[in-house]
């Protein structure tokens, strides 16, 4: 069994996020860049498949040369190897463009499952997993809060607003996981050391057979072209309670004034 886990390098949530004025994309070099936290749940699920059924697990990352630290971080959880797609022409691609690159990168890999995090913490569109599935002609079993593989059958509990759908299909399939699915482990010291020597296959768009005029900012189907910081909010009313809860009356007055009561 072979599992591919696409991972993403994102700005640290706690740090400043900067949009590059010229390219109008997130400047991933402005603050500290990290492995997207949601990816850790996908990696954990893949590592469990490795432990339980001997799956080979490969990470896949799209990003410039300096994103290699993120690839090594992903490998430190005990994965078997990684593919990194690096090409200047990729910059500014929209979610569907990124999906085209991922689909091209995995199509000859003879995988059984692709396991994504359901969203990245920076763009948060959630579009990439289903778009990759569409490009590959595979089922998209997304928002998994539970998954189970039995032979060539996969069962997933797809979380939604009211609970979840129990869905099943045969492999190969594309899965995305939500954080409720597991409790990710920390990389072991052994894993961190081993990550340095795991095979890393760096490829360009040409290696994937993707033409530069299919991706990148100039060919994005959807483009963010203007951005501005949110105007600062006026300071609110802050009252201090004396320890008896009496400040609740002032809050109730305010709510009544605002017609919430």
């Amino acid at each position, binding site marked *: 069994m072979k599992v591919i886990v696409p991972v993403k390098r994102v700005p640290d949530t706690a740090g400043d996020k900067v949009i590059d004025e010229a390219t109008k994309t997130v400047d991933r070099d402005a603050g500290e860049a990290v492995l997207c936290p949601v990816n850790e749940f996908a990696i954990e699920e893949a590592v469990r498949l490795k432990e339980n059924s001997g799956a080979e697990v490969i990470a896949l990352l799209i990003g410039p040369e300096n994103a290699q630290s993120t690839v090594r971080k992903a490998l430190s959880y005990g994965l078997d190897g990684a593919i990194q797609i690096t090409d200047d022409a990729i910059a500014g691609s929209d979610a569907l463009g990124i999906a085209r690159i991922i689909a091209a990168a995995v199509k000859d890999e003879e995988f059984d499952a692709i396991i994504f995090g359901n969203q990245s913490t920076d763009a948060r569109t959630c579009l990439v997993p289903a778009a990759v599935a*569409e490009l590959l002609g595979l089922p998209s079993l997304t928002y998994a809060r539970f998954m189970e593989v039995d032979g060539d059958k996969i069962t997933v509990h797809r979380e939604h607003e009211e609970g979840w759908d129990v869905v099943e299909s045969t492999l190969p399939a594309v899965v995305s996981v939500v954080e409720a699915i597991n409790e990710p482990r920390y990389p072991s010291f052994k894993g961190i050391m081993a990550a340095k020597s795991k095979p890393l296959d760096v490829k360009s768009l040409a290696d994937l057979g993707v033409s530069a005029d299919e991706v990148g900012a100039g060919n994005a189907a959807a483009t963010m072209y203007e951005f501005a910081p949110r105007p600062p909010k006026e300071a609110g009313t802050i009252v201090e309670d004396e320890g008896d809860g009496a*400040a609740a009356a002032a*809050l109730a007055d305010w709510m009544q004034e605002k017609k919430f*009561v």
Partner: protein
Amino acid sequence: MSEILVLIDHSEGTPRKISLQMLNAANQVAATTGDTVAAVWLGEGSADAAATLGAHGAAKVYAWDSEDANAFVTLPKVEALQSIIDGGDVSAVLFGSGNHTKDVAARLGIRVDGGVITDVTGLDVEDGRLVATKEVFGGATITKSRVAAGKLQIIGIAANAFPVVETGGSADVTAIDVTLSDAAKAATVTSVEKQASADRPDIGEAAIVVAGGRGLGNEEGFRLMEELADVLGAGVGASRAATDAGWYPHRYQVGQTGRTISPTLYIGSGISGAIQHRAGMQTSQNIVAINKDAEAPIFAIADFGVVGDLYKVVPKLIEELKARKG
């Protein structure tokens, strides 16, 4: 004349609030472009829903009244939309930015070579094309996006970004028949587990959301949150600290890796307001914070804050609100 399709999200035969909000958004666009607003109902129950959709601005309803629409994962909806798009003149498709509908949009975008923009909070028209406003980085940055010329505009509308408006109109129903591909039947839905409380609104749709965090200290604290919510007709949310502790189910988690909500009133108790949480609620119209730590970052974005022990303040607040309701 082109059509704007609105993919109706529904539950138990009733359109969700986001669907009615999208019909209003589509009508605002149509007022400029002259397009026709057509609702797309996929699944059983179209006959009963058509009147509601018409009364909220749908001039037309495409209805595929078949249990197949929900018997398989995502693709039946994609193929139904595709059949309408292929057979007609469609300028835009609006969908609710919920989990499962985003998948429909992504797959449709690939199939029809469209462009997809999610979580849109405002729409304008320039030169006959849509300009979509969307807030990113937890609401810290406001952006404008558009779909490239010549490509179908597939636009995900954020909950509570548009009001529900009754137009008092009525809709013509056009039944459609969809022949599913084999691929569309590859992943089956074997059962649906409904966990949501029937008597509290979904936090994505609710006008008021009451949220609890680490400061509650235990699972019991959420009974107090529910009591406050029920006085206000509100939904109940939780911070990640609270869901990670197992005090409340994960699907109620508000924040970067959970739900993004935008109610008219958010009341956070025992929530410090870490950036991961703010990313999921910062665009709420009014923010109330109750926290014993005066330095908690949530007070910086609060319209009204109470520095105090939530176990003293919230019971008193419930009392006060009940008294005011009479």
